[in-house]
């Protein structure tokens, strides 16, 4: 039986008192607990920061392969350390080993993509599974060969936050500050490469160098997070905060800031919960916290969240329906004045409740007046109805005469696209059409 994760020591099988909670959250609950909380918070911040770039460069799953590929490195470092006169379990040695095979894995992915006909997904999967398989083989070699002190190595797979020491916390602090500094210094270059790498190359920024910088930072975060959350879950700390932050903003610096914030918050909350409650492995609680923040962001964020998007769409649909009705009314004023509204509804197959609401809305906006079920357009209502009808006709004409160059992203059904046109475009269209008719 392998211990997975491992709770932070001090947690007992009892709900924590308020005093304990306050002390833990304000970092006054003993040296070990505090250094674990500070360490994971810093790790979260660093991972969130780097993860933002990894997400924009679409390297999320490369990071996954990288972290799996660290396992053989850890094992080789463990096996090789004694012959180099080093203690096999010393963290720096294991971390260097991890970094070497991690980078080797990424190099292999790059070679597979560029030198063979295999695609990125297959290349990532191959490196991930074969390197990890090698790690498992080496792990079994170590477990059968060495004496009891070897057993700890598989903690790197699931992580063991409890084993974090003060020097680990300092390492994470240094890495956090370092990666923040690099990201700030290279913000312009990195953002150019992230959004338009061919343009970046044209302006003299070597995209490969920026990718290497991002990769280097990912390696740094991955290796330093092995101890705390383990090599399977560290990728979550790189991906999830950035993916959550993406829902909130379209601006890069905000994305980076938010991603770091979400990462830090997950680290802080996760390790605090783990310290306060029994049997709550910190690594998984941190990732679950991040996952909850992701879900909340996905649904609630005002910029790109699911609810906000649905609301916006509904509003547009409503406006379009309003305009349609105005247009019908406008056309009917010319052909058959005094026709009851319900007739129009039947003709166009609009459900009656929706139709009543629509008519009410137009009434409130002052576009129509109602008497005995007959709608009359007001002055502004008929002006707007005329404009919608004219747009409609213009666009129809545009599609007929210029269909070959009509933008492909608009909806081809004529009923919809009229709402896309702004006044400026309409004027241009009018000129165009006048020319094409002449």
């Amino acid at each position, binding site marked *: 039986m392998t211990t997975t994760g491992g709770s932070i020591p001090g947690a007992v099988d009892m709900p924590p008192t308020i005093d304990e909670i306050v002390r833990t959250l304000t970092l006054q609950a003993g040296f070990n607990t505090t250094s674990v909380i500070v360490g994971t918070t810093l790790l979260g911040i660093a991972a969130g920061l780097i993860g933002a770039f990894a997400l924009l460069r679409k390297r999320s799953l490369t990071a996954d392969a990288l972290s799996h590929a660290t396992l053989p490195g850890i094992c080789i470092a463990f096996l090789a350390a004694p012959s180099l006169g080093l203690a096999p379990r010393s963290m720096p040695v294991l971390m260097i080993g991890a970094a070497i095979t991690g980078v080797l894995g990424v190099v292999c992915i790059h070679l597979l993509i560029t*030198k063979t006909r295999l695609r990125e997904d297959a290349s990532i999967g191959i490196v991930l599974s074969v390197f990890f398989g090698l790690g498992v083989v080496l792990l079994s070699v170590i477990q059968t060969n060495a004496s009891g002190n070897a057993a700890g190595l598989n903690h790197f797979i699931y992580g063991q936050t409890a084993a974090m020491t003060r020097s680990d916390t300092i390492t994470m602090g240094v890495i956090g500050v370092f990666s923040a500094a690099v990201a700030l210094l290279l913000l312009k270059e990195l953002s150019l490469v992230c959004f338009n790498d061919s343009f970046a190359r044209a302006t003299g920024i070597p995209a490969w160098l920026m990718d290497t910088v991002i990769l280097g930072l990912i390696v740094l975060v991955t290796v330093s997070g092995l101890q705390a959350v383990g090599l399977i879950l560290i990728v979550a700390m790189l991906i999830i905060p950035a993916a959550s932050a993406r829902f909130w903003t379209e601006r890069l610096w905000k994305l980076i800031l938010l991603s770091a914030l979400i990462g830090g918050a997950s680290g802080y909350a996760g390790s605090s919960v783990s310290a306060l409650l029994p049997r709550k492995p910190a690594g998984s609680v941190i990732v679950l916290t991040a996952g909850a923040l992701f879900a909340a962001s996905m649904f609630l964020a005002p910029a790109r969240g699911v609810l906000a998007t649905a609301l916006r769409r509904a509003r547009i649909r409503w406006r379009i329906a309003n305009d349609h009705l105005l247009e019908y009314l406008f056309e009917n004023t010319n052909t058959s004045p005094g026709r009851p509204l319900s007739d129009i509804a039947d003709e166009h197959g609009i459900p009656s409740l929706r139709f009543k609401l629509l008519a009410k809305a137009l009434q409130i906006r002052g576009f129509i007046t109602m008497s005995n079920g007959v709608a009359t357009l007001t002055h502004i209502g008929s002006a707007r109805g005329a404009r919608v009808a004219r747009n409609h006709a213009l666009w129809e004409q545009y599609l007929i005469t210029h269909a070959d160059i009509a933008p492909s992203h608009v909806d081809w059904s004529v009923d919809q696209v009229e709402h896309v046109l702004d006044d400026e475009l309409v004027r241009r269209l009018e000129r165009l059409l006048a020319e094409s008719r002449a």
Partner: protein
Amino acid sequence: MSDLAYGFIALDLMPMLAGVLAALCCGLLGNHLVLRQQSLMGDAISHAVLPGLVLAFLVGGTINPAYMFLGAGASAIVTVVLIQLVRRLGRVEPGAAMGVIFSVLFALGVFLLEQGNARAVDLDASCVLYGNLESLSLHWTPADTWDAFLSKATLEQIPRQIWTLLGMTGASIVFMVLFFKELRISAFDPGISTAQGINASAIQFLLMVFVAAAAVASFEAVGSILVIAMLICPAATARLLTDRMGSQILVSALAALGASVGGYFLSANAPESLVHGGSVNAAGMMAVIGGVLLVLTIIASPRHGIVARAVHRQKLSRRIAMEDLLTTLYRAREAGAPHHASGMPAVARAKSSGLVTAKNGALSLTERGLADASAIIRRHRLWEGYLVDRAGLLPDHVHAVAETLEHLDSPSPNETDAPHGDQHGKPIPPAS
């Protein structure tokens, strides 16, 4: 029955059989994942089955295979659906969506594992990763004579995991044979597939269900890491060797077979000097051999391999160097100036194949060399004419393009394609 045979049957047959079946089952289905560029779905699914397994364990109280299968299968389907949901609703990049979902589910699994009694019993997180192949021999005590071995009693002893894997492999083969056409067309062109009345997304979902089932059936014996390796490596190996769907599947099956059998033997017979006890983790070794087979293929594949491509490039560059030498000599001859190129490898080759002779250090074309050179010059000048007359390029822009086109094997233009003759007033050599 000899001791050797009995030892093999008693100790190695069951673990090896499990490995081979898991590799076959995943390796076959993997073809469609690799072709659809969804190799990492296997990775996501096999990580994300953990919470389902633990929940099934917590509910069932013991290791109950039916519960476990249901739990893992349910969480596999949940994974597929959630990834789709995050991609569609949240407009998240596919890689990131996958990463978010499987890591959160895996974390949930690790979290649940620490609750309740799961920790104390033999539901082991590392077993999920690298399986428990060796334990398959534990309750397997076959008879030691062939007559007794080949009886019904032996069948009853075969571990449940083997039956599960056998069933799953059979089901995968049936699925792939029955839906061969549908799977192929929906992988290559979902648009055409839909136009022909084959629902591409339904086929896609069905494939995911099979991948999930294969992962669940395999993980208990071989662990998720071998599942991921076998879903991708054999199919990738075949991808480098063939361009046809049928042979792709056959080759991938062979690669899966090779990786599992080879990996098992290597793991069971590791050198005693390196490994105390002479055995290492079999599932890990199979994954490694899968990778080794792939690397060998990358190097040695007859058409797409590194060696083959290097040889091909070398041949081509030699031919081009030779053709350039011949045309240089042709032009020198046309201008009436002797040519003194020497020391180039192409010169030596041209001499030895009798295309060029040297007199007092000056090179000249032999009769055969002249014929070859005329043909190339003819192609060059006709291409130049064609580029100006038909493609509308400016006369001073066409030389460099024609310099490339003259080496092509494909048919070159003739006089009707370039009615104005050579752009620089030179004669076009007649066709031989």
